[in-house]
């Protein structure tokens, strides 16, 4: 009889702990010296935790959105917020703060990830794509196309992916010029018929065709934006899509 409570205590006293690499998504001040850090990891998804002393001179330089960190998360119980200890792997601050497109892009990526991903749900493919995209920050000629591909991956990962392989009506694989705003499937001109004006235009860049100019990418982002707003956001209780995405598109529009 006496052993059971001792065993439970011993189990309670044991800390849950894991260590992984992650990208910083968001940093919020908590009390005077601490911050609540949101990181995206491969094995644990988006995880929040307290970093004590996070507002200090040393740590605040490391804890910037986009930074790649080695994080150790500890908590007494799984449902606790938990605490992080962090080691820098690489900062992306210089690349992201160097230009307005990079900054706007970083804000859009971190904003959308915080908006769309539930906490503690692993999405390894999306993690890989996100880290690749963050590594491209500062390369303004490559970044917009990379961002478009990333938005497609985000939709795919969360169950709202576009199927552009064949026409939803005729099954044809050629002449695809529309996307159904409901199903996200491609539609050919023949298949669209009198419904054409109710469908979204399918820019060639979404089929990996054409020159992928900024104007083409913007047109494609209008399509992904429809699914982010009307499908993904609707599934999350109609939260508005982060304003940072609109600012990025505005910047791209001005540079087109």
């Amino acid at each position, binding site marked *: 009889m006496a052993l059971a409570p001792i065993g439970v205590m011993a189990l309670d006293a044991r800390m849950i702990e894991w260590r992984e690499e992650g990208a910083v998504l968001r940093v919020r001040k908590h009390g005077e010296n601490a911050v609540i850090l949101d990181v995206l990891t491969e094995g644990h998804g988006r995880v929040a935790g307290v970093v004590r002393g996070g507002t200090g001179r040393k740590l605040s330089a490391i804890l910037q959105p986009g930074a790649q960190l080695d994080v150790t998360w500890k908590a007494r119980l799984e449902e606790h917020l938990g605490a992080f200890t962090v080691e820098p792997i690489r900062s992306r601050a210089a690349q992201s*703060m160097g230009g307005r497109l990079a*900054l706007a892009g970083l804000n859009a990526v971190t904003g959308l990830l915080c908006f769309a991903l539930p906490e503690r749900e692993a999405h390894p493919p999306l993690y890989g794509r996100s880290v690749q995209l963050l590594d491209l920050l500062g390369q303004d000629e490559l970044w917009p196309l990379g961002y478009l591909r990333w938005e497609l991956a985000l939709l795919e990962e969360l169950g709202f992916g576009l199927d552009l392989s064949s026409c939803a009506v005729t099954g044809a694989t050629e002449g695809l010029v529309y996307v159904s705003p409901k199903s996200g499937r491609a539609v050919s001109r023949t298949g669209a018929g009198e419904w054409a004006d109710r469908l979204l235009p399918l820019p060639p860049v979404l089929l990996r065709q054409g020159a992928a100019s900024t104007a083409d990418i913007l047109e494609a982002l209008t399509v992904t934006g429809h699914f982010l707003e009307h499908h993904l956001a609707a599934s999350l209780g109609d939260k508005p899509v*982060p*304003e940072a995405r609109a600012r990025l598109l505005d910047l791209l529009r001005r540079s087109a």
Partner: protein
Amino acid sequence: MTKATSDIEDLIDLMARLPGLGPRSARRAVLHLIKKRGPLLTPLAEAMARVGTTARECLNCGNVGTADICDICNSEKRANGQICVVEDVADLWAMERAAVFKGRYHVLGGTLSALDDIGPEDLRIPKLKSRVASEGVTEVILALGATVDGQTTAHYIADELAGVSVTSLAQGVPVGGELDYLDDGTITAALNARKQF
């Protein structure tokens, strides 16, 4: 608890809410104030009561003072065509401690933050634009933090202020800094902003 003890406990509770103080240090501070009642406690209470009735935000720049327009905005000597944009009053005070900048200031009251839903209308950016137009400003110096939010705000303001020179503080190795102890972001920024020696 007696009434007298309760008053002191109330004071300790209030002091413990100040930044940098916890219940223990608040208790020590209150005990010290009680011991130094004549030279410290009474003048402090009077000063706090005075500031409590007179402190206000400058209607022009957002600085904290005891008049509607602060001393810096009232001084003709500071009207040299330069406005230094800072995030917070603490940053303004830090700039004034350095005693290098001789122009006027503009306190934004925060930075843009998409994640925290802070947009341009939540900051004093419209007021900055009207000041630039009405005060004969030739240069706007952006002294915002070297953070993602700080630099996002800086780019937004630069876009909004067409037709006036917009500069920003340099980023790089701090005075007394050793490279070995700097993060790689700071080293990259410093290398990008290198100058002829």
